[in-house]
């Protein structure tokens, strides 16, 4: 299909969707309103007018990443009521021009439901300093091997995201069937830091520049669903398009003769694309002892890139998806679930591309992977008593990847050096889980759950895949006592993968395989408590501990034995999160809330290979740990006082402070303080 045809089809789809939307919106309410009107009911309105003052110090972006940090008036409104033919709901939260939320729902005699949502959010982005030049001691008389250049030093980066959703759901007058249509739009605008490299002849030029972001994603979903006695049918058609309105970055490259001549080239493109899917679903009546459902979806992902420096046929992916569940409940004691999921991805990329400025006019391209995945799952639950449930589950996933295997070839130019993906053609993942759940007190006041899962893969595809894994999960939820309650959970994972290896070519171009054995342990624990020692006073506390430790064989270098070091390295990560709060009804009209939080995050990669003398110099593990170390402290407090002036009026004052501190560097340290005063009326 040519691009002109696709553009026309896209426009037709959009026109069709919008036309149907407007017709439904205009005609159906009239039809629905022909019945007798509602009796007028009182309306409920809650309006809040306020002002937020913001004070910042240093770099506030990480202290409040999603806050636009503008001092401004604020406005909130919640309206609920009915008019002659509809139930209406309006919800508005306006913080400032860069941050607001609007939602409206209209329910027209339960025949037509119209929903409109529009919100804007702000996302502050980092600007990593990029202005240091390197002067390696190894080459004192030569230009630096690496240099840095920031084309836009000191520039602030941020994104503004707008989300709009319009949906209509129309019910046929005397039949359980609906027509649905929805339009969704996601728009991103702003600038972000683009860091890239020019592999020059003289050295690697690391560069940073501003990247203009102006992207729109639009989605139209239309469908029907109907209850037809024994079965329910659902059909849905989805079309989603992505348009990048900003130009592809173009920069000057020194080039690396003879591979690339110096010149101005496009790079780091975000191409336009499209996603279409047709889905048909069916299920038997829910709530019976035997329930089955099935769905089939077919669709396509298409790239609509339009580069000028590279000439090629754009890639596309055809997919087919199947899903089915069967649930059989012969009695209150037994439940059997069977599940199947099928996925067939057929990726089509061009066999070659032509790239201007390169040594060879045309490069051969390796075929992308086609993936076929079949998932089978069976679980059986047994409830010997209403207080206890025992469940066993078996899961099997068969993955088939095409275009995999050997032989690989030494690095070459123009020819594909690795025509196949070095991945297993077939992989089977199996999981077995045993779960014990208990409700020791009535009304779900105390829920206990624990499960253990064992996982294996016969051909783990990646180093991070799990060859053998054990997971234990424990949790308890208590809500019986009016004075206190809580949730506690713990998760322990122990995984290993000794089946992954890297292939390299030694100095005689002979193929060498290097094992990359790996072990990972994850321990997570969290607790949430609430306490109400007396009426009008309550406390809450949440604590979490997240820990991960990885030991893996890491390979430095690509040409053994002279330029390759292998060592078992350790990576550790630990996070503590703590938040606490108190609510206090000081007197009848006066209440307050005070809360605080602290998060400590530490991570470090600890390379520890011994010093090696190589042909080009001395290789050490020194400094590597410091470069990647993360040591963060985030904390904040918030206090709020509420005054119920009378039945209709109330006021509140809120003060907050958020602080971000990086113990390794002060580049992004900062503090944000806000003061919000509100006056509200309800009627």
């Amino acid at each position, binding site marked *: 299909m040519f691009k002109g045809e696709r553009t026309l*089809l896209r426009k037709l789809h959009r026109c069709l969707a919008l036309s149907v939307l407007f017709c439904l919106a205009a005609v159906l309410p009239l039809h629905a309103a022909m019945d007798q009107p509602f009796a007028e009911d009182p309306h409920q309105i809650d309006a809040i007018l306020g002002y937020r003052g913001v004070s910042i110090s240093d770099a506030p972006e990480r202290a409040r*990443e*999603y806050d636009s940090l503008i001092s401004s008036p604020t406005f909130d409104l919640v309206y609920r009521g009915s008019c002659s033919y509809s139930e209406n709901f309006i919800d508005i*939260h306006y913080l400032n021009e860069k941050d607001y939320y609007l939602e409206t729902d209209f329910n027209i005699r339960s025949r037509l439901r119209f929903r409109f949502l529009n*919100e804007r959010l702000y996302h502050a982005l980092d600007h990593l300093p990029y202005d240091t030049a390197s002067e*390696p001691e190894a080459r004192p008389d030569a230009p630096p*091997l*690496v240099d840095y250049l920031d084309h836009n030093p000191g520039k602030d980066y941020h994104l503004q995201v707008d989300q709009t959703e319009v949906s209509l759901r129309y019910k046929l*007058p005397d039949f*359980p069937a*609906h027509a649905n249509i929805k339009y969704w739009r996601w728009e991103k605008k702003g600038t972000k830091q683009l*860091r890239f490299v*020019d592999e020059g002849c003289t050295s690697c030029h*690391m560069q940073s520049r501003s990247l203009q972001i102006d992207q729109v*994603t639009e989605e139209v979903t239309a469908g029907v669903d*109907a209850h*037809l*006695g*024994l079965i329910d049918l659902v059909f849905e058609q989805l079309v989603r398009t*992505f348009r990048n309105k900003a130009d592809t970055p173009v920069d000057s490259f020194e080039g690396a003769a003879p591979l690339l001549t110096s010149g101005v*080239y496009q790079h780091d*493109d975000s191409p336009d694309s499209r*996603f279409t899917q047709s889905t048909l679903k069916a*299920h038997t*009546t829910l*709530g*019976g002892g035997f329930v089955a*459902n099935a769905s089939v979806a077919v669709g396509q992902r298409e*790239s609509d890139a339009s*580069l000028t420096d590279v000439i090629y046929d754009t*890639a596309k992916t055809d997919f087919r998806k199947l*899903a089915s569940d069967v649930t059989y409940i012969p009695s209150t004691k037994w439940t059997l679930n069977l*599940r199947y*999921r099928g996925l067939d991805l057929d990726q089509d*990329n061009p066999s070659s*591309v032509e790239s201007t400025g390169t040594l060879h006019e045309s490069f051969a391209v390796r075929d992308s992977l086609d*993936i076929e995945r079949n998932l089978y799952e069976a679980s059986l639950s047994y409830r010997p008593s209403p207080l206890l449930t025992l469940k066993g589950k078996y899961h099997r996933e068969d993955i088939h990847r095409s275009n995999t295997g050997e032989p690989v070839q030494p690095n070459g*130019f123009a020819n594909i050096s690795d025509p196949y993906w070095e*991945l297993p053609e077939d992989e089977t993942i199996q999981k077995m889980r045993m779960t014990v759940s208990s409700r020791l007190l009535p*009304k*779900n006041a105390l829920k206990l759950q624990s499960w253990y899962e064992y996982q294996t893969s016969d051909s783990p595809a*990646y*180093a991070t895949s799990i060859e053998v894994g054990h997971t234990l999960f424990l949790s308890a939820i208590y809500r019986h006592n009016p004075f206190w309650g809580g949730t*506690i*959970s713990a998760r322990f994972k122990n995984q290993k993968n000794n089946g992954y290896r*890297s292939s390299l070519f030694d100095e005689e171009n002979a193929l060498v395989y290097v094992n990359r054995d790996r072990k990972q342990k994850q321990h997570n624990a*969290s*607790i949430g408590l609430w306490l109400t020692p007396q009426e009008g006073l309550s406390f809450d506390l949440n604590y979490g501990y997240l820990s991960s430790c*990885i030991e893996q064989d*890491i*390979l*430095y*270098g*690509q040409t053994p034995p002279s*330029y390759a070091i292998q060592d078992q390295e350790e990576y550790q990560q630990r996070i503590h*999160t703590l938040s606490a709060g108190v609510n206090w009804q000081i007197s009848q009209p006066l209440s307050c809330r005070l809360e605080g939080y602290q998060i400590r995050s530490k991570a470090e*990669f600890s390379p520890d290979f011994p010093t090696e003398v190589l042909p*080009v110099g001395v290789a050490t593990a020194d400094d590597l740990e410091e*470069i*990647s170390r993360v040591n963060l402290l985030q904390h904040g407090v918030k206090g709020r006082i509420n005054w119920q002036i009378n039945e209709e009026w109330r006021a509140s004052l809120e003060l907050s402070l958020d602080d971000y501190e990086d113990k390794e560097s002060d580049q992004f340290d900062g503090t944000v303080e806000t003061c919000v005063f509100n006056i509200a009326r309800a009627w």
Partner: protein
Amino acid sequence: MRHLLFSCLLFLVLFIAVACGSVDSLKSARPIAPIMDYEALLVGNLDANYIGDESCLKSCHKHDKIAFDFKHSVHGDQISGETGLPLVNCESCHGPGSLAVEHAAETQKCAFDTLIPLEELPAQAQSMVCLKCHSAASTPILHNWMGSTHANNDVSCFDCHQLHKGPQQKVDRHEQEQTCFGCHQEVRMQFAQFSHHPLHQKVVCSDCHDSHGGTLDKSLLGSTTREVCTRCHMEYQGPFVYEHADITEDCITCHVPHGSPHEPLLQVGQPFLCLQCHTGHLGEEVPALDNEPLKQAFYNRCTDCHSAIHGTDIPSAHGRGSFIAR
């Protein structure tokens, strides 16, 4: 074009099937092999009679707020039989109420113990209170419910939907995270980390997860994590000429969507993230481990050079798909 024609054809077939069906027989729910023990629990007290909601809502001011909230909820039109919609009133869920109000005038309160003890029912029976009507009403969001993770871990509709809390009977976007965190405490802790999705009024749990059951593990919307993530991050959907193997179908190989101490939402920090699968730079032309400045360039953030890491259509100068600018 093929997909458009296919979808139109399916639509037409469906429309004809609906139009030709006998309306009355199609409107009823037809559960297969109903579970008689649960059905007995949901019948209610056999000695009681149905008395209509006016005897509950309009005869006692204590129910004024419940009456107002229900009237303005999605069930509001169905509380009266005049609209022609299936009846959803007090007794639809609580059972026949004649015994509950028999002595209400003297005691000034209802005898709740004569109604169906909803809070004490098993989770599957609680869900069936809702499914009795929703299975005859074409509710496509419940397509995967019976096989869902929640349903099979004894989570019922009542655990999330508070029908008498207010007019909003669906879980409100503003309150969704607190509802989910009530059980998923670990996820609350994950979102507290520095790099996180903007939860609370911006992104909510249901933007990625379908709590009523999804086709993917962890009740995710879509069939691969790439499909879930690239709805909002469609600049990474591609497909690209040079893909990052099939891990682009599984974004969580590198990313952790709830929260992380590593920007942008990475499982572990760079360069270790990439060194797990790939080899590091060290060779005759690149003595990358020789001194501190070279280590700063080659063992810091791999994506500073490999900037098109999610896939690219542009070959590197060597003619390979190295995700490097040029």
